[in-house]
């Protein structure tokens, strides 16, 4: 992951020993699928799985071209995420992008109650990328399907 981490200043602890505190960010490599604004040929709600109608963070839905991520735990709305993606067939990684959590899921990843970053049990599908975020990351997708391998971490 192309990320610059600054080296912190040395400090002295109570025993006079020199220490250097580090904060380690843990990235998770998972597969995420697409969350669409509206599914193909649908323009009204209800439209299951479409963020135009509702998300766990905004029950009235989000506007078209919203860039966000969904992960498999509720109660994390608006938290910052850094994400980098590449297509499942391989190819190059996109550049690191900052975004926020605006939904939870998907169902195949354990729904909204599977915080795999606490236990390391990564599900088949570790979250969703909105269609607009997929586009920004250069990932091919349709109005119903798309998936990518991502590296993500909390900000």
């Amino acid at each position, binding site marked *: 992951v192309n990320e610059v981490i600054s080296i912190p200043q040395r400090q002295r602890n109570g025993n006079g020993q020199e220490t250097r505190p580090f904060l380690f960010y843990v990235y998770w490599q998972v597969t995420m699928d697409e969350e669409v604004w509206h599914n193909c040929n649908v323009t009204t709600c209800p439209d299951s799985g479409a963020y135009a109608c509702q998300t766990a963070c905004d029950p009235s839905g989000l506007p078209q071209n919203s860039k966000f991520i969904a992960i498999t735990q509720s109660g994390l709305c608006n938290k910052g995420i850094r994400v980098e993606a590449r297509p499942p067939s391989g190819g190059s990684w996109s550049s690191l992008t900052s975004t926020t959590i605006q939904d*939870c899921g998907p169902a195949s990843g354990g729904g909204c109650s599977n915080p795999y970053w606490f236990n390391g049990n990564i599900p088949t599908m570790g979250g969703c990328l909105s269609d607009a975020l997929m586009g920004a990351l250069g990932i091919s997708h349709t109005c119903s399907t798309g998936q990518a391998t991502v590296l993500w971490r909390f900000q």
Partner: protein
Amino acid sequence: VIYSLLACAFAYALLPSPAVHVDLAEKGDLTGDGKEFLVEWYRRGPLRAESGQPPQYVRGVTVHGPAGEAPISARWESKPTALPDFYRQLNGLRSLPGTPGQLIFATVQYGGATTDLYVLRLRGTKLQQINDIAGRAISVEQMGSKPELVVKVRPSDLSQIYALYTWRTGRFQRADEAFPQFWSRLAESYRKDVQEGAPRSPFDLQVDCRFAFRAYRLAGVPRAAAQTCFAARKRIQSGRSLAPNLPSERPEQFEQEKATAIAEIDRVLREIRLHD
């Protein structure tokens, strides 16, 4: 200190409890012996939410009755959700052929892409949860002329390929292979999209090939997918009715998309050959 604790307890008791809203009430025979119960689907909330998070609700079901001797009152509740909407078409009492007593169907939407269908039955004085089927989209319907109910789930990974559940040995269980005609029709729709459809991207065509293979395989004729995949590959190579998947793609990226799609189609074709 004691007075302070008593005051706190008193104040807590005066706090309004989360409102309960009943969305649906139905009467039905849950035990198969002709006794009538009242079933209510409700939401409770809003519950207290963490700072910056949307309000939470729980959805629940209560059963009261039967009228007369020893009435019971059973309850089931979901995990909290921020999405309290009620979908009438998926909630209700349903009778299954050969099963005594009606079953209770209840859905809860947890996220934009996460809906759970819960199937409950009354056992003694308690509600027993016998299924929790999660998906991006869920429907309950009859397939063709068969009287049995099928739970049709669109999972999130390959969203046009459904998971089908039927009632077997006391619960809904995955039974995709039991509906070859359904898969055959779906596979044909992919073939038509590839051979006759509107302009598509190489990525769309690659997905059509992959989906067609899955559908034809479940229809029992996996080799039939080769026709769709060869047509998809030919269309990409000829450039007929082809559009880039992402509007911002540069010509060299479009060429890369085409090459990636062809490589993926070839991978599917190799899998199809394994069925020879």
